[in-house]
């Protein structure tokens, strides 16, 4: 999910081939606003409901065009080119296949077992196709992005590596995280310029191990404190269920302060992982003579996450558009391109425009899997 959010906002990054001597820092900029997006969102939501979901394909295109179109780099914005009808067709076919499966499972429950190999070999294919769709449907300065990842590559990363992680009881997990990011980014291209993913496996191990360590320490501290408090309470109130309840009640404010404290610690650890992951992923992209930089920080990330969550809960969802804009803005505005000063030298790749089949298939499978 993290990958997909980030990719959605910034799947297009530009760079250059010329070897300019002086380097410039080009920050990303997000010009959308919560109020504006709210109106777009609610109108499209109503239209989607009234049309029994059919309009959702148009709504999706408008949403992505709004977010791409408000993402600026060096004074130019990105563009999303997906076609609503193609997306609708894809969704209908997937929905039909789902109904067919449910119906078949009713007649013969053993059909469910077909799902296992289907998922094993199908998911990498869907990931590959959806990456292809995401990149080819995006452009910057009228040059499309592209994706050169293969099905074999996806199978190796998402099935082969997954099995390796299971066999090694998780020791290879950080390397797998890196492999997945690498599949998405190292295979991408802007026009004819292929991207490279430079972040070392060691960096992924470092932040994964630190997260793991922090988690263990926090968990141990939590258990230790709870047992300590319970013991103290028992000493004061005696034993038995009644005494336990009395003890819990006696904890009162202190207890809740403690729980809040642990929630804050858990969120801080989550924020550390999230920031490290995104920085390591996007910060490792090289596009010709240009390097992506990502400098997300833990505290603002956690703050945005918590306030967004509370805002959405207390407005029964109405805050969602503002939440989405805030998150996108923070993420984008802490990213930049360290450029050799020339973003004008990229050339269009001839293949994407000719392979309408690839686009259709990509459209077909772009069904928000949240991969």
């Amino acid at each position, binding site marked *: 999910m993290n990958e997909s959010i980030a990719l959605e906002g910034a799947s297009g990054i530009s760079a250059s081939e010329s070897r300019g001597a002086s380097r410039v820092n080009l920050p990303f900029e997000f010009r959308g606003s919560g109020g504006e997006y709210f109106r777009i969102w*609610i109108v499209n939501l109503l239209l989607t409901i009234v049309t029994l979901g059919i309009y959702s394909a148009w709504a999706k295109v408008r949403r992505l065009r709004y977010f791409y*179109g*408000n993402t600026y780099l060096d004074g130019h914005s990105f*563009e999303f080119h997906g076609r609503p009808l193609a997306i609708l067709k894809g969704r209908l076919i997937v929905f039909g296949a789902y109904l067919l499966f449910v119906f078949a499972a009713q007649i013969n429950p053993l059909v469910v077992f077909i799902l296992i190999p289907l998922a094993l070999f199908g998911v990498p294919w869907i990931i590959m196709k959806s990456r292809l769709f995401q990149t080819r449907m995006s452009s910057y300065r009228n*040059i499309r992005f592209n994706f050169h990842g293969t099905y074999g590559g996806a199978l190796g990363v998402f099935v082969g590596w997954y099995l390796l992680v299971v066999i090694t009881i998780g020791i290879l997990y950080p390397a797998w995280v890196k492999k997945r990011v690498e599949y998405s980014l190292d295979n991408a291209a802007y*026009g004819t310029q292929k991207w490279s993913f430079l972040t070392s496996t060691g960096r992924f191990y470092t932040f994964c191990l630190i997260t793991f360590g922090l988690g263990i320490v926090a968990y141990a501290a939590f258990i230790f404190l709870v047992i300590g408090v319970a013991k103290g309470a028992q000493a004061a109130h005696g034993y038995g269920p009644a005494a336990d309840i009395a003890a819990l009640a006696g904890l009162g404010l202190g207890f809740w302060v403690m729980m809040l404290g642990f929630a804050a610690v858990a969120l801080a650890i989550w924020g550390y992982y999230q920031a490290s992951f995104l920085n390591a992923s996007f910060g490792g992209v090289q596009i010709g003579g240009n390097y992506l930089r990502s400098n997300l920080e833990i505290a603002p990330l956690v703050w945005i996450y918590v306030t967004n*969550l509370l805002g959405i809960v207390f407005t029964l*969802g109405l805050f969602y558009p503002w939440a989405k804009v805030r998150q996108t803005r923070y993420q984008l505005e802490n990213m930049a391109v360290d450029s050799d000063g020339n973003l004008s030298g990229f050339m*269009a790749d001839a293949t994407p*425009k000719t392979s309408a089949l690839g686009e259709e298939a990509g459209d077909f499978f772009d069904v928000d899997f949240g991969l």
Partner: protein
Amino acid sequence: MNIPGRYFDGHSSAPLEATLEFDADGMVRVHGLPEPVAARVLEVEISDRIGNVARRISFPNGGVFETQDNDAIDAALDAVRDVVGLRHGSGLVHWLESRWQVALASVAGVVVITVAFLVWGVPAIANWAAGVMPASMDRAIGSGSLDVLDRVAFEDSNLPKARQRELKAMFTRMTSSLDDGHDYELELRDGGGLGANAFALPSGIVVMTDQLVELSKSDDELRAVLAHEVGHVRGRHALRHLLQAAGVTAIATALLGDVSSISGILSAAPALLDAKNSRDFETEADNFARQWLKDNHVAESNFDAILCRLSHEEGSDAGKKDFDFFSTHPATGKRASCKAAAEAQEPAGNPSEPTQPAQPAEPSNPTELSDPGEQQLPAEPEPAPIS
């Protein structure tokens, strides 16, 4: 009129400062390029307006002219629209999206439709779906619940064996003519902490506690309660309840799918709906019981009497005054007229008299609402969604 912007030829990422012109004979021209670019208005693709996103005019040669001046593009299009036969209405969605009044009306629309669908649509769909499913589904849902209850809450019945046989025979007579695929059977238990109570399992097993038998003043009252429980089974309320819950969850997920962490917190809303649907099921079972009593020439007042006595017993341990929306049962004041029931019982002794005053669904006397009789039936066990 020339609109300033930038042109990208589609071969390289180099931007070219340029201006766009819609001329009177239906052509679009880009000026300021080394080689001029032009096409007929109908040949170019003009992106829909969304917020303040830059407008793109895509030419057949792959070039794109991009401008921030959305208003100028709209004005130019309006000017040439009729000349070149450009379709109308592509700006409608943007018109809707750019107005706060429309946005607020949309909020109201989304809320009304969602609530209406949850309150009426989901139960109707669940009802239809339950009708399609075979009776074996009912057995599958309820299997095991009685075992659990026997372990947790119930003891064997303390009623004399003869009395037990008598009651079971009575229930068999009641249900022998019902040919609806359910295996009706009466089980008697010592209710323990649950007290006077009766509930139905989806398969057709109806459980009644000794305490309820003792609370009753006649077998007709017990018949009334049993008919209510049979109403739950026949109405397939357990299955419909499950289907409704699944439907509500599906909708909540669809609406809040983007924010999965939220849906858990908002699960209170489905719970409220659940209580409302549960009350609807009670009312349905009540109606079934009253109809059965009428058809079998048993006075309806028997049903009112036992309901009121049950709620009286329950009322003593609870000073709570449940707001209707939160309760799983309708207020007894709405289900039975207790005062009238008490009067009807006085000259009773002739329960088969069919001309007993029929009880209105709503209390005729407003003071009934403050009667302790308003309390709901005793809380019924969770494992059996039916009561």
